[in-house]
């Protein structure tokens, strides 16, 4: 059982702007954790805090009951080796081949060339992009690019996967296909946190968290309490 827990997390920006006041939430494995909210509410920042890319101004982030906000620089770099990130706009390097893009996280960890080839091949197969291995991202559609981005996020078998609007460029069918892929990871003890502003995507989701006015609330709990009140 893996989990990520936010304890009284606050985030301030220069100029005194307080984005998060007091975030308290727990994201578990076995199912995708969706974070919803309107544009600009801080979904990306929240994912960056969870991924260790941005330190919170206040509060703590616990991963498997370990306080990762207290990590020093080298511990944080080690932590990031276990985290997969899918960004909003795929963030591929356009003059590098699909293979090279997917191999990047493995190169960062200093993996050997043979292991890299094996892992990249497997990842591209999972997202159905094996044939595009030698192509440049400029030759791909936006949907295909996002699939490559997902392959890159899962290539190092992350224990924590954060995805920022991963299906923004997909039609509903492809979006559900990708979410199915994330579900597979979640079932394999990976904590998956997906930020989206598409309410349709989460209409049947098990775990949904709403980010609003600097606070986060579990919609599932809110719905269940509304249902019990009725």
């Amino acid at each position, binding site marked *: 059982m*893996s989990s990520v827990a936010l304890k009284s997390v606050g985030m301030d*920006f220069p100029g005194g702007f307080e*984005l998060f006041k007091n975030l308290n939430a727990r994201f578990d494995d076995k199912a995708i954790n969706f974070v919803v909210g309107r544009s*600009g*509410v*801080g979904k*990306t*920042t929240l994912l*960056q805090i969870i*991924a*260790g*890319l*941005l330190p919170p101004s206040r509060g703590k982030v616990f*991963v*498997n*009951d*370990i306080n*990762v906000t207290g990590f020093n620089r080298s*511990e944080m*770099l*080690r*932590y*990031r*080796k*276990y*985290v997969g*990130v899918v*960004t909003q706009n795929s*963030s*591929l*390097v*356009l*003059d*590098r081949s699909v293979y090279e*893009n997917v191999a*990047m*996280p493995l190169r*960062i*960890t*200093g*993996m*050997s*060339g043979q292991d890299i080839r094996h892992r990249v091949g497997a990842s591209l197969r999972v997202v159905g992009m094996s044939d595009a291995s030698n192509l440049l991202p400029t030759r791909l559609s936006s949907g295909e690019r996002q699939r490559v981005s997902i392959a*890159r996020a899962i290539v*190092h*078998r992350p*224990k924590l996967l954060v995805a920022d609007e991963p299906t923004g460029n997909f039609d509903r069918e492809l979006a559900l296909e990708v979410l199915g892929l994330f579900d597979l990871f979640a079932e394999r003890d990976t904590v998956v946190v997906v930020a989206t502003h598409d309410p349709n995507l989460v209409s049947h989701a098990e775990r949904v968290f709403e980010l609003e006015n600097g606070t986060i609330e579990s919609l599932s709990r809110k719905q269940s309490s509304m249902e019990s009140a009725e």
Partner: protein
Amino acid sequence: MKPQSFPWPDDGREARESVARVRLRSLKESFEHLCSHPLITFFVWLLIGIALSLPAGFWLVQHNIGVVAQELSTDSGFTVYFYKDLPQEEVETAANSLRRNPIVKDVDVITAQEAWEFLMASDFDEELDALDSNPLPASLTVTATQETDREQILELAKWASEQPAVESVEVDTEWMVQLHQIRQIASRLTWILSALYGIGVVFVSVAAVRYAMDSRFEELRVISLLGASNRSMRRPFVYCGVLYGFGGGVVATCIVVLSLMIIEQPLQGLANRYGGSIQFLAMDYLFSFILIVVGSILGLVGALQVTVVQIRKNRYSNRSR
């Protein structure tokens, strides 16, 4: 039992390649990057090479001016003219007493007859035929040693002029002072120009490396997003920068060598006019090595500047909502 301090047990992913292999691979990738963009690489090499060859060339010029001035200053001294029809023995006596002075390197005796023959060999032979007798006196050409300063030469010339057999003394130090002053001006000018070009070459190198790496800033942003350490982010860029600088250094060496080859002939002609003993400093292995090392360091500085600034920018842009 030690409490767990990391969220996950090590599953082997932290086993790393040796640092040497990681660096070697990074260097290979950087080299491949340069090869895959030959035009940009050539342009950057040329830019850094030209910028670097200017201060290097000026330094060589400055050094060679010093060599020439020092070599020519050894020929300074004065000429002693005796009264007409003075017996040769008295001339020799004066020459010998001058030779005993420690600042005197050489005393050349020119008899009245030798001076007359020298004059007869010139283009004025028709005018000279009209003269009844040799109007020229005997003379001594006194050459001071290299270390002698002007004051010492003037003092010795004054002593020579006071000798009863001596009619006049002509001191040759004036042109030496002028040469020395010209040398000082040229030396300072070349230092100023070298320093200015030296500063310029740093900016040119940074700009050239920045231009060459512009297309890779997105890569830097993505790598930072994937959680790479600053050092591993910088590494391929730093290697690229060093390769650009190294190539620039090689180009600069070629430019200076070619320039020296072009001016070698007239320079040697000038040297021959002054006895042919001047050895000009040309490009040698050490100078080429220094030029290439300086080029590589400049490339390194350029790449570091570019990556540090870009990593800082990425950090701020990652903080967007």
